[in-house]
């Protein structure tokens, strides 16, 4: 109790430096929030500078926009589900059925976070592309005329690439949560005759739920915003919102349309960011 009297309150009150926040905040405002406001403004004004909501409504009903929106949502939901499954399976094995070298492997998967996302897509064209290893092998073995595996240039190619890239984001919080699970509880359940599947369901999973929600919502956010993978797949049918923004702005110079789509994409992302913060907050991060 004696300690409490001389605690940080004094430091905070004595430092006169409240205004020190101004320089970095001003930098952020000028370089990030000001452009963001301009995107919103441009989305609702036409070339002459007049307010124009009609264009916004038109884009909202346009086929190319709806397709991109559906693609984006389908891909990110499917990829997140994949990340949750892969992350959970890898996490369970790394944490509860460890093997020699599993620590190194966990670190290795972690470093995938630092690598550019398009790397995986590029690798997949060599593995599963029409002239890739898998197709060449199958054609050789079964003497086929045409490549039998064709999923790469579809939505599923993007989903598989995103699962690879983003499952470490589920694995990381999951391993942290697993390290807190009481091993004694598992051993007790095991001694009492519970089978591994039941222990996972009744002991381990309840402890992992917050981590799964946090990791999953982070995956949703990142996959909705993913650009490199979709750009590198370069399939005509797989257009997502970020790719649509890029092609409208850079290839067609249709800045207002690009801004309209950006507004919707940003709104979607910020909603998911809110979800992630909420989940991570509940997790105790």
């Amino acid at each position, binding site marked *: 109790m004696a300690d409490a009297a001389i605690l*940080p309150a004094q*430091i*905070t009150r004595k430092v006169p*430096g*409240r205004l*020190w926040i101004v320089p*970095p*905040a001003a930098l*952020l405002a000028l*370089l*990030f*929030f000001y*452009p*963001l406001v*301009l*995107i919103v403004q441009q989305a609702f004004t036409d070339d002459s500078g007049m307010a124009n909501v009609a264009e916004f409504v038109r884009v909202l009903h346009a086929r190319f926009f709806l397709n991109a929106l559906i693609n984006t949502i389908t891909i990110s939901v499917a990829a997140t589900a994949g990340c949750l499954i*892969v992350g959970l*399976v890898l996490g*369970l*094995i790394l944490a*509860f*059925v460890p*093997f020699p070298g599993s620590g190194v*492997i966990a670190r290795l998967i972690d470093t995938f976070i*630092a690598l*550019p*996302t*398009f*790397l995986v897509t*590029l*690798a*997949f*064209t*060599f*593995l599963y592309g029409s*002239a890739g*290893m898998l197709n*060449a*092998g199958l054609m*050789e073995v079964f003497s086929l005329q045409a490549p039998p595996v064709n999923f790469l240039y579809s939505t599923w190619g993007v989903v598989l690439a995103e699962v*690879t890239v983003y499952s470490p984001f589920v694995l990381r919080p999951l391993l942290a949560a697993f390290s807190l699970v009481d091993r004694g509880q*598992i051993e007790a359940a095991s001694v009492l005759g519970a089978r*591994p599947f039941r222990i*996972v369901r009744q002991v381990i999973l309840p402890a992992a739920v917050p981590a799964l929600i946090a990791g999953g919502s982070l995956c949703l*956010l990142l996959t*909705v*915003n993913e*650009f*490199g993978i979709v750009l590198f797949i*370069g399939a005509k049918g797989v257009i997502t919102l*970020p790719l649509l923004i*890029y092609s409208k*702005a850079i290839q067609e110079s249709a800045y207002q349309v*690009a801004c309209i789509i*950006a507004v919707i*994409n*940003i709104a979607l*992302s*910020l909603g998911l*960011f809110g979800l992630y913060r909420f989940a991570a907050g509940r997790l105790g991060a």
Partner: protein
Amino acid sequence: MLVWSRPGRMLIWTVFALLFGVLFLAPLAVILLSSLADQWNGVLPSGLTVEHYSDVMQGAAWKAMQASLITGCLASALALVSGTWAALALRVQDATLARVLGLLFFIPSAVPSVSVGLGLLVAFSHPPLLLNGTIAIVMIAHFVLISAFTFGNVSAGLARLSPDFEQVASSLGARPAYRLWHVTLPLLTPYLVAAFGLSFALSMGELGATVMVYPPGWVTLPVSIFSLTDRGDVFAGAALTMVLVAVTLLLLLGLERLTGRQTR
């Protein structure tokens, strides 16, 4: 240990090896292999060569490497300064304001990078701040995208710091500037180095915003890898990707060494 029987464990480890092999190991291995492939028409390349590397190391790719390294260095340095500054300055605000501002500093990481690029194009394509077509706009894009990560890392570091050292320094009469320079920053150094490493790695791989704003003379590694593969030159693209991966990993390893030594 969850599974006790030997066959059971073997089965589970096989599942792990398959998942890990297909998802993580195969992509890296195949990029490495293709960067060395002479001709690749069957299951395996018909011969190995380092030609792609010597091709990429000349001319345009070398310039791309320089552009990426310089962009990464400057953007990360600026993000480190502003992120550390913001995290330190937030400590003296009252709780509600600190929470709101902290959230605002995080938001750039949640906005799609293509939109960040679009916003910069819209905002800085006309006077008084005409930056479109300059190198500066690439740096700004990278800075905006990585600033949230440096801020987050440094804030997390600050939260873990015991306030005792600063209080002792303060009670011994150390003025705020002296305390910052000789107590707080040295204690924060491992987090600062880690933040810089992460920012640098993110900047090296950044594509979405860069592809929106880059001027012709400042093509970063990811952009030039994309244009190589888009032109059908996949082997050169793979070689350049290997260079990018190697530089990123070397950098992260080096920084890890550095922080490892400092925390000990």
